[in-house]
């Protein structure tokens, strides 16, 4: 955290393009917003774009906008996010996912200081600070040719690597308390404290989602906790795949000495129990045709259930 604070204080007041590298959830956007706030463009807009989350068929339009009249009776003119960031900061998250076409267009806009909307011929000036974020794979993308080297250099005047939360366990407790306080105030739910077990649980977790995962866990925990204390059971750190959750607790693996038929019969029996004997519902869950399921029920000698699901 100290390294990040030092970086921000040194770089924040400048206008330099910055590249923030770190796993998802490490707070890249938060750092970008802080740089924006401390910099000379703080009065301008902070405009964020997720380059991976927006499918390409929408991304060009979102970035560059379009002129009115492209399609008769079509949508009105749209101001793209580059244009909206003029005078401010453009934050490009997951920048490594930009397509080759969009890399070219972005590079041209960076170098020329101007852009064109889709369907337009008029160039418009563009002047924004660009902060890009990547999960750390940008250099290898450059090496493999998936990302343009010239664009990489445009984006990375200064670079910061944000370490994952599991490498800074000392930050878990202060972050936990910070989030607990925030959500307690937001939801008007007084939180007296967090149990020692819960703290140990949090500090021993691997945090694949980093601070975002911790934040979400505390968000849920504050809503769930009773009596003002956050306990281990209020934390859902390994949120189950929702589909698996519908089946209830799934046995954590079968003994390696069991036959495939045995395991399959057992699972079918369990699913039928869950559906109350409904064959169609069970077939849906198992992902097989109901006739196939009926044959398996007969073959395994499972009790013929009533088809209450129809």
């Amino acid at each position, binding site marked *: 955290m100290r390294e990040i604070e030092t970086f921000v204080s040194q770089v924040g007041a400048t206008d330099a393009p910055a590249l923030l590298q770190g*796993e*998802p*959830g490490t707070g890249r*956007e938060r750092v970008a917003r802080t740089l924006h706030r401390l910099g000379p463009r703080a009065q301008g807009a902070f405009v*964020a774009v*997720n380059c*991976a*989350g*927006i*499918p390409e068929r*929408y991304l060009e339009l979102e970035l560059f906008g379009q002129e009115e009249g492209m399609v008769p009776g079509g*949508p*009105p*003119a*749209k101001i793209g996010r580059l244009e909206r960031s003029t005078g401010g900061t453009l934050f490009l*998250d*997951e920048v490594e*996912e930009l397509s080759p076409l969009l890399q070219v267009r972005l590079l041209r806009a960076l170098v020329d200081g101007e852009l064109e909307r889709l369907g337009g011929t008029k160039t418009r000036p563009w002047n924004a600070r660009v902060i890009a974020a990547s*999960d750390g794979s940008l250099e290898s993308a450059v090496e493999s040719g998936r990302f343009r080297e010239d664009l990489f250099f445009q984006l990375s005047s200064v670079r910061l690597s944000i370490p994952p939360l599991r490498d800074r366990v000392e930050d878990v407790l202060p972050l936990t308390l910070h989030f607990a306080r925030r959500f307690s105030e*937001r*939801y008007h739910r007084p939180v007296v404290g967090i149990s020692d077990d819960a703290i140990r649980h949090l500090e021993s977790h691997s945090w*694949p*989602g*980093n601070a*975002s*995962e911790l934040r*979400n866990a505390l*968000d*849920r925990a504050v*809503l769930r906790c009773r009596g003002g204390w956050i306990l281990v059971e209020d934390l859902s750190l390994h*949120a189950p*795949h*929702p*589909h698996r*959750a*519908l089946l209830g607790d799934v046995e954590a693996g079968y003994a390696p000495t069991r036959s495939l038929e045995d395991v399959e019969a057992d699972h079918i029996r369990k699913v039928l129990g869950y*559906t*109350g004997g*409904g064959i169609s*519902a069970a077939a*849906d*869950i198992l*992902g*097989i*045709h109901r*006739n*196939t399921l009926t044959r398996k029920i007969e073959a395994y000698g499972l009790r013929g259930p009533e088809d209450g*699901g*129809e």
Partner: protein
Amino acid sequence: MNPSAHVMARRLRFEEVRPLIPDIEELEPLVERLIRLSEPDPGSRWAGSGALATLGSRLVDPSHLEAAVPDLIEEVRSRTEEILTATVRALGLCSSHEPEAAVPLLAEAAQRELERGRLRAAYALSASALRVADHLLDRRVALQAYLVVARVRRIEGRLDESRVAYGAALDLARRAEQTLQAATAAIGLGNLEVDHHDWIAARRWYDVAEELLGGATDVPPHRWHLALNRCILAREEGDLDAAEGFLAKARALSHGDPDAVPIVSNARGQLLFARNELRAAESAFREALTHVRAADARITIRVNLAETLVARGHLILAQDEARAAEEDALAHGVTSRLPEVYRMLGEVAAAAGLPDAFLFFEQALEVIDSRALPLAERIRVLEAYANFHARNGDEPAAESLRRVARDHATTLRTPLP
């Protein structure tokens, strides 16, 4: 050593795979299976892109489909056999001067197709049944076929055609003195009027259904369904006390029917939501979830719960419920419900101030258009999308969407929600 033994199949995004599958009816089971086999991209789970994930960005492993081929073939074979058998037998009955027996045969096949969600086939089979019935002196056997047509047209949003079919069914049922079927048709007509926001006409039809059921005591599902429909009607009219009364009646009439518990609890949740008693509404929906078995009903309850959680400002929990509804829809092949799930995810994202919330509304519209789902849902998505733009200060974009919604509403001859 065979080099190909070390080749790992690459998982593809659904939006990459879908266009590669020819758009022919015979391959629909393949697309449905692909959807069920799809999984969220674990690599983007905690990334910003993960929060925006929809069906298109889910990963599929086409190599898994090879194992599913025998099952898919069986599914197609079994369905084709059913339809062929019913049709050939119906032809045989017509040829042996027993057309009155052919009609219910085709209608049964139509009903099964409807339950499978295959609307085109359901309509085609019931239309054939009706064409056979056209030549009969006594057309009462066409009753079930009319009901299937009515249900199909209602799902498709072709409400006027649905009304004609329900009307014909009611007429036939009365003449055949089939009280339950007549009440079913009358309830269907009432529900159509609710779709049209014509509360007075809806109430008239529910009164007809009540009258038809008379003092019969062995019709519990019809009675509590009717009470529940009246509860919904009263709620839509804003008469929450009357709605409460009908809900209590539905609960009493449905006592002992396990299928009723989640439905009644869900209705209770909706009523509490209408009263702005959000904490109690949340409890009612959670209660409903503990009892529900059918995926379709579970999706409805989760979406209602998500809406309540958004209203309470508990966005992370709302997102959890909406995502669980999405998994339900995908895992159980109820993709027709995806638009409302994505609409809810869009509303959650919009409430959280995410500028990319528009992606959910766009995905909802894509699913509606690709599956020819009802205009009514398209209207709801467009309205929610317009609200998103308006909230972000983009009034021209909002008005553009509202204009399209108004055009759709005019087509349906129904007021905007």
